């Protein structure tokens, strides 16, 4: 399998982009709020925060650029929802690491049986 080169590590690839986008506590709180509400607009989110709608809209756009939020234009507003990408990364880790162990353990079984054969008195 050629997936080893694409090993998922925090700080690299998609996960790195996710961490960058979530590096700010305000943006993390916004993602949590959107997740809680299901979908939300900048106006709805700003109503409960001591910041302007424009500031919230800018951060939502950054989170959408990072792939954490999906954006749908509804009339004059953009409605955001949380995308399942980080969960996709988790599933990818499980599939990749599980596959690596299956291959390694098969190779270990071969290595052990070769060792046995080599030690068998001739």
């Amino acid at each position, binding site marked *: 399998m*050629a997936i*080893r*080169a694409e*090993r998922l*590590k*925090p*700080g690299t690839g998609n*996960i790195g982009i*996710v*961490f*960058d986008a*979530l*590096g*700010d*506590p305000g943006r*993390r709180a916004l993602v949590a709020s959107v997740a809680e509400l299901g979908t939300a607009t900048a106006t709805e989110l700003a109503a409960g925060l001591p910041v302007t709608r424009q500031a919230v809209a800018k951060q939502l756009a950054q989170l959408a650029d990072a792939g954490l939020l999906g954006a749908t234009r509804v009339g004059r507003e953009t409605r955001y929802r949380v995308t399942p990408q*980080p969960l996709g*990364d*988790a599933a990818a*880790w*499980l599939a990749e*690491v*599980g596959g690596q*162990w*299956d291959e*390694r*353990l098969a*190779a*270990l*079984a*071969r*290595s*052990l*049986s*070769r*060792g*046995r054969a080599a030690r068998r008195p001739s």
Partner: protein
Amino acid sequence: MELHVEREVVFPAEPAEVWEALTEPERLEEWFATEAELDPVPGGEGVFRWGDGEERRAVVREAEPEERLVLDWDDGGEVVLELEEVDGGTLLRVRETSPDFAAALELHALSWSHSLV
């Protein structure tokens, strides 16, 4: 968020033979990595390289000969290898834990806010 991969395999071999295969670099190169360096004592270091240029480093957290080997990967993940003598050979139990994605995220947040100071 942490994830786990677990596998259990019985090998028709003595625990001592399996332990050698898990800890001796030249044996590790037969099944685990293309190039392996490992000092299988607590605090010992491991470096593993694959043909595609991938390199992973680890520190040995626990090493109980023929029983248990625990490696901490430098990315925050860990792997626990446990041996148990059973009918027909040796049971190897593998448990690899992912880096804690949530903790890494908090760590990143910390360095991010410090960079603003």
